[in-house]
């Protein structure tokens, strides 16, 4: 694993850039644990200060340090994204592998459900869930909801990999050796599916962070918990653009774009490394 990482860093420029960006932003987010002030405190500092030696990224109209707000915000946003990714990976792996391995009616049934979910517009459904739940909505609930809507594409992909493994010699050996279906799936097939999980996880993380930014920009999340979208929400509430407090909105945007770029570069270079001739056949044929 470490050798693979080293090879990728040395020989794949995209991976190296993506890796540096992602790790850099992660370290920056980690720094919020050592922040000099709690991230929920408002009107602690002089408001609307432009970037300076004292406040590197300036302060907000609510008297917060943009730098430390961002550190917490990226942390919370990544946490949301990772939660979505982990839950949705579990769903995608279970549905994809079971469907691909069992085949026949089960496969048809699961894939029909899968395709139905793909055809549903995510954002309106997420907004409806938020609207109905309102004050009882917390970020883990939102993450779980997003995860429920974000696994189907990848389940198809994993299914097609499992489908090809099913007819391999070693699967037949395992069946004759008396291994149960869960045993075969976990011990024999999972190692082959792992690279696909890893690759889709990156894309899913990007998607989940996008969902978080979108929902909290609209104010449809806990606005007192700093997130990237939440910072932009507050900046909009205070008319930051019109008031010329550009640093309040520009730095979060730059941070999130860099994070996206980093994750995206990681995703494509890892995909290339795993399978240079990957044909992500969308129909899973």
């Amino acid at each position, binding site marked *: 694993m470490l050798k693979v990482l080293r*090879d990728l860093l040395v*020989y794949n420029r995209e991976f190296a850039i993506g890796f540096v960006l992602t790790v850099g932003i992660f370290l920056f987010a980690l720094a919020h644990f050592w922040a000099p002030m709690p991230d929920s405190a408002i009107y602690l500092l002089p408001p609307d200060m432009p970037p300076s030696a004292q406040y590197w990224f300036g302060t907000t109209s609510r008297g917060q340090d943009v730098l430390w707000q961002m550190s917490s915000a990226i942390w919370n946003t990544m946490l949301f994204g990772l939660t979505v990714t982990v839950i949705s990976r579990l769903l995608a792996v279970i549905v994809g592998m079971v469907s691909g391995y069992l085949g026949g009616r089960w496969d048809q049934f699961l894939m029909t459900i899968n395709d139905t979910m793909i055809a549903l517009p995510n954002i309106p459904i997420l907004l409806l869930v938020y609207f109905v739940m309102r004050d009882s909505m917390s970020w883990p609930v939102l993450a779980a909801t997003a995860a429920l809507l974000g696994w189907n594409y990848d389940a198809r992909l994993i299914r097609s990999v499992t489908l090809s493994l099913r007819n391999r010699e070693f699967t037949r050996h395992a069946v004759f050796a008396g291994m149960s279906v869960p045993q075969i799936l976990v011990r024999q097939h999972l190692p082959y599916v792992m690279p696909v999980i890893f690759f889709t996880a990156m894309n899913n993380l990007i998607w989940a962070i996008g969902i978080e930014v979108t929902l909290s920009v609209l104010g449809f999340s806990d606005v007192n918990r700093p997130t990237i979208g939440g910072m932009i929400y507050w900046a909009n509430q205070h008319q930051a653009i019109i008031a010329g407090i550009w640093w309040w909105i520009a730095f979060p945007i730059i941070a999130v774009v860099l994070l996206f770029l980093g994750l995206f570069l990681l995703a494509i270079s890892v995909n290339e490394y795993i399978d240079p001739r990957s044909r992500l056949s969308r129909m899973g044929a």
Partner: protein
Amino acid sequence: MLAVVETKPASVEAKPVLRVEGLKAYYQMNYFGVRREVRAVDDISLTIKRNEIYGIAGESSSGKSSLIKTIAGAITPPLRVVEGSVKFDFGGKELDVYAERPAMKAARWKHLSYVMQGSMNVLNPVRKVKHAFHDFAFKHMGLSEQDFRARVESHLQRIGLDPRVLEAYPHQLSGGMRQRLTIGLATVCEPEFIIADEPTTALDVLVQQDVLALIKEVQQRLGSSIIFVTHDMTVHAAIADRIGIVYAGRLVEEGPTIDVFERPQHPYTAHLIASLPRIGDTKKRIALPGKPPNLADPPSGCRFHPRCPLAIDKCTRENPPLVPRQTGRVACWRAGEVEAA
């Protein structure tokens, strides 16, 4: 089924239609810092006469497919020509495949056509068959659309296909029909040279016979030369005039088919022929020990020596040159001592 037609007068020119000289084509890869060089075609020289069927035989991964692709000018990186030349002679004009690319492109299908391995998928699945004929052949024929269509239809009829296949999509045709169609496609311009890469491998035995007969019939009628590759020695016995045996990227023996089969000069050829089943023969077949060498790191000297029953010290050190012997050529230090099986 097959209409009898006049055969073209056989060309009496002595000049060969294809001359391959000292050809070396290597796969050169550099992936994640690992450099690899696979010598798929290593110093091969051969000539093919007019009106001749030349078969290339060898095990899988012996480099025979790379050889034929290199001859056709159909190689893409990482496979590259490192040394040597491939020259055709079309109607008295010499054409160097790797030096005159535009002229080569213009000559394709007019003078030189190709029958691909796995011919099942060589037709565009979303277009009707007639478009393939139009794309491939129309510009070379100098005919009006109507005359062209008539010519294609009569050509198809001659090789036993209903002209209505032109209006079909590939997926509507059977495997045998598709194979016939690709041969029709390869011969519609009456080229002087046809390259065939495992033309019958994917077919079942009966269709295989049919297709071989068709290739032979068309070749005789057109007076074309054919170079073809297959691992199947029975196919060579059936249609080749001469055969060349390729082992580990090198030509190890070459000669008239009948001589090679009856008096193989190279121990590897002798083994290939000995392993053919024969009616009434109850002798146990001896499997050759070992496997074909890794072309990224071939053995020293004669590349066959680790598996050769006749290997001597010299074989491990010095590479035997391909020298004329009897009716053909052979590359073996102990060529005189090989016994036919």
